């Protein structure tokens, strides 16, 4: 838990970086500070490890005012990752990762074991340990930066645009891996970015900030997308807010709707009733063990529904996928629907635009 209590920061040249900031970041979560450049988000982050000292107010970390702890000792307990990474060019990957454990005086064997563990955690092959930073790719360097920050297992991690300098493909990989690592480690992470999509993707909680260090809204990504507090937040979230919300909601959140489903062998009037109930002129055809066979026009159904007449659905979705993915399938579907299957491939129902609209209102 990190708390900003009435924090202000005026710089020596008179500019105000932060004007009275009150914010409580929950422990074990990723809190993203997001906002346009110059809004004070990096300043706020650097106040936590005393890279910047406040002009007023206090920052409390785990119950202690950070100014009561000597800076070097405080910082060794707080992981730090920046966009430029700042790897030590004269030290190998392994030595870079070992930095804080060495400063903390761990014995060699323990350091070696920890380095091996971290290389694996961040997805780097062991032989990378002996290379120098200039011999690594940008993505590898950023992984080393994360491993170095995690080395002494600090409870708190500060990350300032850590993935800003890598290409979009590598960035997506690194974001995924941060989520995976965080799911296992439950660190208290302060993550600074100007990228709304990154904030929504990674944040358990988001603080949307404006200059000078004002929090315009603080909440979960879903809360902020559903109800932006003011015009600033709305503008900052940008276009496609609805799509961004859908991306956060799993299909599982919507109760399965059976739709016009009939089993092979059903009579024509049963099929007609199912279609009428769902207000369609087609039906979903299932096998007796509820496997999806396809769909058929009601007009094409003979005395009974037959498997042979069913045309296959090209796409389907599962409960863990997002409503945004469901919408994507709807717009490319002839009937404007998306078929939902269980993990074992059995039919669970259909999704329509009405379902999505109901979620967003």
């Amino acid at each position, binding site marked *: 838990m990190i708390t900003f209590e009435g924090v202000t920061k005026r710089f020596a040249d008179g500019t105000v970086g932060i004007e009275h900031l009150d914010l409580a970041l929950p422990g074990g979560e990723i809190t993203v500070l997001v906002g346009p450049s110059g809004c004070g988000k990096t300043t706020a982050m650097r106040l936590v490890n005393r890279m910047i000292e406040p002009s007023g107010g206090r920052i409390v970390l785990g119950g202690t005012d950070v100014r009561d702890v000597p800076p070097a000792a405080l910082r060794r307990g707080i992981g730090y990752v920046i966009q430029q990474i*700042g790897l030590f060019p004269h030290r190998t990957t392994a030595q870079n990762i070992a930095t804080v454990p060495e400063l903390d005086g761990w014995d060699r064997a323990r350091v070696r074991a920890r380095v091996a563990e971290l290389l694996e955690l961040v997805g780097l092959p062991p032989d990378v340990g002996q290379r120098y930073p200039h011999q690594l790719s940008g993505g590898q360097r950023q992984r080393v930066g994360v491993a170095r920050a995690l080395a002494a297992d600090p409870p708190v991690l500060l990350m300032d645009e850590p993935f800003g300098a890598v290409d979009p493909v590598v960035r997506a990989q690194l974001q995924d891996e941060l989520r995976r690592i965080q799911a296992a480690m439950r660190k208290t992470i302060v993550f600074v970015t100007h990228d709304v999509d990154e904030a929504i993707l990674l944040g358990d909680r988001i603080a949307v900030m404006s200059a000078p260090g004002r929090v315009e809204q603080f909440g979960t990504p879903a809360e902020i997308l559903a109800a932006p507090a003011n015009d600033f937040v709305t503008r900052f979230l940008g276009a496609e807010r609805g799509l961004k919300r859908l991306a956060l909601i799993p299909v599982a959140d919507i109760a399965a709707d059976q739709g016009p489903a009939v089993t092979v062998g059903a009579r024509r009037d049963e099929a007609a009733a199912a279609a009428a109930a769902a207000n369609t002129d087609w039906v979903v055809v299932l096998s007796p063990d509820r496997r999806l066979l396809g769909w058929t026009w009601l007009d094409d159904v003979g005395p009974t529904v037959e498997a042979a007449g069913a045309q296959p659905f090209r796409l389907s979705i599962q409960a863990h996928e997002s409503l945004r993915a469901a919408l994507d399938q709807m717009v490319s579907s002839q009937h404007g629907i998306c078929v939902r299957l269980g993990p074992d491939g059995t039919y669970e129902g259909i999704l329509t635009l009405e379902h999505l609209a109901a979620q967003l209102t």
Partner: protein
Amino acid sequence: MTRFPPDWLARNRDLVLAQLREHLELTLLTVLIAVAITIPLALLARRLPRLRTPLLALTGTLYTIPSLALFVLLVAVTGLSRTTALIGLVAYSLLILLRNILVALEGVPAEVRDAAVAMGHTPRQLLWRVEAPLALPVALAGVRLATVSTIGLVTVTALIGYGGLGRLFLIGFQRRNGTALLTGFALSLLLAVAADLALARLERRLTPWAEAAPARTGGAT
């Protein structure tokens, strides 16, 4: 008329070796003393940035004094002694070394220093674990330059009774002995080239991480 007595070298082998040895000693002592003086000065200038300009101006002024004039002036104070020779030689190396060490320390990338501080290095750990090793290549380039220029300057101290191989120049001029001149010239040249190569090699040995790395620490002087 300058003569080239062919047997001069053989007859004066001991003299030549003694002068070569003196040349080496003066050079080595000069560089060691100058490094010992400039490292604290450079660290002081880092701690108190407003001292940077005056310190560079002072060593720069020393550097611009004509060497002959400086040695003559020093003789008036410290006599015809080895101390006189060393003071003069050291004075000329200060600027090269100070400027290179400062540039070397300032060339440590800001993000590396930032990360080091934020990871919990104390100021002393920052200096010895991060800044000093990263400054080493450029600082050593300064040592190389100072060494080579000292090797040349040592010959001037022949005028106050030292001079290493410079003594051979004096003998050559006074006795119109071309062999002595050439010997002095060739040996001081060889000495300079050998020192330069040896130090370049040391530099590479001490900085394996810099191999093939893009130069990030700025120019040599």
